[in-house]
């Protein structure tokens, strides 16, 4: 063998060895020697140790040996030019997968021997397996937290990482929020702040982007693209990616995983929405049924009380007590009416409209409510001059606004000021916040304020806010309450732009 060819063979990272037609080793390269050393067979490391020895002695397991023999027969026949297959080849410390390639050596048309080459493909093999496992795991997963968990677990198998973060775009504000992170030491806010430019870059470019951190770790960021759009991005930090090939592979794997994750997240959100809707519908149905049945006994009670009042009209004690009965009947009937409203499966009558104009009407017709408690209302109105960009059922949105207004008025200290602020979000959505400086809602109650029949308010039925939540939800929007002793209580209502609402519909209807 000429010296140059020899140097080439020795320079290759693959383990390369040649055999003659009988299977005796004729040469090995330096990668062979290194491989033998590291695998605990230093007596086979040197070419002089192994030359002339049968290759079969080096292949322990019968199945592998058979595979090589079959390949040799096939290659010798000239029907195929080369053969390759993957095989497990565990070291004492690690599970590994190797790729074996066999090709004939020819002199003229005659096959005189074979060249075998093996290379460790454990990382890409592992990545491929992890990808398949992840596909299987995610296809079953319908809970968001579970999706994050599976992704960060399986990703670790595919690409050993030091840090992993997954961020979602807030559909309303367009801001990025880290939904999950693992391995990073940074404070969540700092991490979000540092990685946000990477996420935005990957999302804008629609492809994987790679950065190097100040401490020379590599950070790979892939956009999470689903059928309906880009949901967010994920970043992986690793300082064990040592070659350009490994990096390329990591990029490919992360891109594939990001895609799978996006689909899984979308499905999980959809399932959650559908489940929530089903639950609310069932509650509504039961509520409406009970409400109707309550109206008959209420009528019986009020009629009897009215007749009693009439029969004993000279008796002030009877009169006073009948008054109490009738007031309670009225209160119960108010609850029944609310319940019926809640349970009534009435489709929205959507039309383009500006929610601020609905606030105008609600405030106008409820001025007395504020005056009764000597409250002032400061209004900061969204700048909007075009045609309404929102599809709303004006009557029902008015119902929501009245409800939150009444709550705010009741909670506010007398003679204080309420603040109503509306704004247009970057996504075209409309948002308002109604703030009052009243006593804070306790945290445990705050978490439940939108539940049906939950009320933290004296004499409350626990229907009003549940109904508000339903109506806003039916508009594809959201309603939230924040409350702290320092800042008071703020209700935030968001109505998506027509376009966003349609996109949500399209997703839900798929």
């Amino acid at each position: 063998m000429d010296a140059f060819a020899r140097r080439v063979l020795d320079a290759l990272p693959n383990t390369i060895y040649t055999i003659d037609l009988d299977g005796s080793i004729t040469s090995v390269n330096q990668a062979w020697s290194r491989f033998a050393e590291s695998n605990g067979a230093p007596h086979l490391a040197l070419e002089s140790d192994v030359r002339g020895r049968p290759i079969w002695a080096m292949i322990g397991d019968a199945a592998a040996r058979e595979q090589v023999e079959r390949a040799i027969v096939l290659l010798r026949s000239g029907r195929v030019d080369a053969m390759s297959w993957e095989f497990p080849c565990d070291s004492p410390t690690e599970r590994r997968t190797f790729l074996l390639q066999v090709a004939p050596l020819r002199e003229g048309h005659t096959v005189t021997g074979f060249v075998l080459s093996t290379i460790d493909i454990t990382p890409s093999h592992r990545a491929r397996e992890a990808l398949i496992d992840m596909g299987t795991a995610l296809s079953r997963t319908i809970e968001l937290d579970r999706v994050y968990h599976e992704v960060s677990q399986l990703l670790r198998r595919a690409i050993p990482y030091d840090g992993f973060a997954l961020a979602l775009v807030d559909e309303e504000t367009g801001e990025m929020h880290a939904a999950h992170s693992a391995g990073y030491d940074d404070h969540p806010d700092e991490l979000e702040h540092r990685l946000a430019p990477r996420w935005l870059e990957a999302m804008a470019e629609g492809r994987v982007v790679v950065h190097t951190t100040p401490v020379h770790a590599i950070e790979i960021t892939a956009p999470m693209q689903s059928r309906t759009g880009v949901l967010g991005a994920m970043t992986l930090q690793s300082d064990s990616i040592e070659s350009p090939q490994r990096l390329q592979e990591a990029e490919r794997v992360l891109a594939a995983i990001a895609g799978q994750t996006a689909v899984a997240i979308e499905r999980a959100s959809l399932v959650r929405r559908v489940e929530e809707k089903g639950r609310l519908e069932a509650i509504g149905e039961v509520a409406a049924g009970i409400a109707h049945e309550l109206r008959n006994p209420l009528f019986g009670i009020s009629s009897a009380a009215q007749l009693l009042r009439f029969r004993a009209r000279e008796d002030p004690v009877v009169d006073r007590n009948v008054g109490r009965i009738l007031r309670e009947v009225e209160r119960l009937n108010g609850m029944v009416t609310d319940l019926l409203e809640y349970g009534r499966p009435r489709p929205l009558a959507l039309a383009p409209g500006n929610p601020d104009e609905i606030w105008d009407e609600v405030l106008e017709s409820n001025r007395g409510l504020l005056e009764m408690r000597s409250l002032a209302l400061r209004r900061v109105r969204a700048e909007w001059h075009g045609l309404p960009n929102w599809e709303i059922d004006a009557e029902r949105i008015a119902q929501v606004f009245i409800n939150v207004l009444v709550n705010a008025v009741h909670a506010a200290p007398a003679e204080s000021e309420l603040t109503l602020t509306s704004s247009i979000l970057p996504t075209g959505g409309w948002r308002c916040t109604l703030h009052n400086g009243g006593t804070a809602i306790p945290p445990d109650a705050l978490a439940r304020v939108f539940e049906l029949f939950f009320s933290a308010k004296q004499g409350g039925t626990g229907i009003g806010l549940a109904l508000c939540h339903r109506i806003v939800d039916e508009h594809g929007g959201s309603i939230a309450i924040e409350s702290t002793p320092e800042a008071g209580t703020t209700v935030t209502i968001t109505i998506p732009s027509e376009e966003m609402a349609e996109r949500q519909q399209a997703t839900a209807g798929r």
Partner: protein
Amino acid sequence: MPKSVLIIEDENSIREALIELFDATDTAVRSAASLPDALHLLSRQAFHLIVTDIRLGAQADGGLQVMGAAGLLSPEAVVIALTAYPDADNRFASQRLGATYFLEKPADLLRIASLASRHGVSTALMPGVRDAE
């Protein structure tokens, strides 16, 4: 001649309260708790005022059937429909079948009394309508 009133209501306490409401010297009250009883009474005499529940027992439209029959048998009668199910369908059907008033339960007895007096029917709460006329 006293004014004749027919009360159709399957809930005993409500029916009894309504009977008591119309307990006035110049008012004659008959009552029924079911659709067949109501139809039977309607076939025997004409009424000035009919107060009927819409849902009668298992029949969600029992009261509507009463109104239909009353249209033939007591065409002059003023009909007050009472219901715990005040949906648009019931309201619309009641109007078409000739109900003059459509009240949601729980209704105010005083309101029923004043509607009755508007049509010359005395009640315990508003006796002596004739004198007021």
